C-alpha cells in the first residue's frame, strides 16, 4: 500500500466519520455536505459522476446510505468502498448501540423527550436542504424540479405505494424530455 492510498483512506475517514455523527434525520441530511466535500473540496468525483452515483444508489436495493459506498468505490476501489462505508456506519452505530442499551432505563424521562422535540425540526431542515442541494446542482434542467415535486406530491398522498414504478417512469420521462428538447 503506497502513501497516496493511505492519504486517500485517511481523507475518506476524515470526511465521513464526523458526518456519521451529524446525520440527524438519516443519511439524507448530510448529502449537501457530502456533495461539497467530494466534488468541490477533494475532487473525488465530478458533478455528473456525483449525480450518476447518487441515482445508482437509489435505484439499487438497500439503504440510501450506500451512496457513500459508491463514492469510496469510485475513488478507491473495493478497499475505498469498505473504508468509506465503515467510516460512515461505525460511529453512529456505536452510539445507537449504547443508546439501545440505555433506552429501557431512560426512555420515559422528560429530558429525553426534550432532546427529541429539539431535533425534529433540525432533521426536517437538513432533509429539505439535502434535496435542494442535489436538485439545484443537477444539469437536468427545469424538468428535474417538476419530476421531483410531482413525485413528492405522489409520495405524500400515497403512503404505501411501491416507489419503483414511479422511479422508473421518472427516468423514462427525463430521458425523453432531454432527447426532444
Amino acid at each position, binding site marked *: 500500500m503506497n502513501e497516496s492510498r493511505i492519504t486517500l483512506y485517511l481523507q475518506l475517514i476524515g470526511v465521513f466519520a464526523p458526518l456519521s455523527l451529524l446525520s440527524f434525520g438519516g443519511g*439524507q441530511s448530510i448529502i449537501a455536505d457530502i456533495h461539497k466535500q467530494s466534488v468541490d473540496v477533494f475532487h473525488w468525483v465530478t458533478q455528473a459522476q456525483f449525480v450518476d452515483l447518487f441515482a445508482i444508489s437509489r435505484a439499487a436495493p438497500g439503504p440510501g446510505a450506500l451512496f457513500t459506498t459508491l463514492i469510496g468505490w469510485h475513488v478507491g476501489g473495493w478497499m475505498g468502498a469498505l473504508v468509506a462505508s465503515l467510516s460512515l456506519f461505525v460511529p453512529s452505530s456505536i452510539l445507537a448501540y449504547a443508546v439501545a442499551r440505555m433506552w429501557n432505563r431512560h426512555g420515559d424521562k422528560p429530558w429525553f423527550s426534550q432532546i427529541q422535540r429539539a431535533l425534529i425540526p433540525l432533521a426536517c431542515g437538513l432533509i429539505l436542504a439535502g434535496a435542494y442541494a442535489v436538485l439545484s446542482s443537477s444539469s437536468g434542467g427545469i424538468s428535474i424540479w417538476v419530476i421531483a415535486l410531482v413525485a413528492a406530491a405522489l409520495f405524500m398522498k400515497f403512503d404505501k405505494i411501491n416507489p*419503483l414504478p414511479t422511479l422508473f417512469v421518472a427516468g423514462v420521462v427525463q430521458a425523453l424530455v432531454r432527447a426532444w428538447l
Partner: protein
Amino acid sequence: MAQVEQAVIPEDELASELAPAPFADVVWLFVRIGLTSFGGGLSAWLYREVVGARRWMKDEDFLGALTMSQVLPGANVINLSIYVGHRLHGGVGAAAALAALLLPPMVVVIFIAMLFQHVGNVPWLHNFLEGIAAAAMGMTIAMGLRSGRRALANGRWSFGVIAAVFVAIGVLRWPLVPVVLVLTAIALVFARKKRTIE
C-alpha cells in the same frame, strides 16, 4: 414513520406471548430486507416482519425504538436494526443484523456501478438515472414535509429552526458541524416545555 403508523396491527391479532427468534432466522430476515428494499421503506418492512408476522418483539417496544432511531444520527433503519438485533440476540445479534442488512446490497450496488461504467457515457442512460434521482429526491422532500408537520406540532418555533437550517446548509452551503451545534442549542431551549395538545 407514516408508513408504519398505517401498518399498525390490531391488538387482538397480536399474541401476548413472543415467539422465539432463532439466530439464523434473524440474520436471514435482515439479508432479505436489505436485498429487496428498492427505494426505501425498510423500517415499515421490519415492523411487519418482526412485530406482525413473526412476533419477535412487542409493538410498543418496536415503536419506541423507531422513535429513538430517528432522533439519533445515522440512517434510521441501521439504528433500528441495531436495536432489534440487540433485543433478540445481544451484542452479537446487533452486529449480525447490521452486517446482514448492509453487506449484500453493498456488493450489489458496486456491481451495478461497475456495469454502468462498462456501458460507458451514454447520454440517455445518464438522463434516465437523473430522472430516477429526481423522483428519489421527491421521496426525500415528502419525508422532509412529513417531519416538518411533526415538528410544527411541537410549536411554531420549529418553523424558524427549519428555515434557518435550510438557508444555512442548503442555500448558503455553510459547514454542517457549527450550524447543527448552534441550532441544536437554540432548539433545546425552545423545546424545554412540552406543548399542551390543543
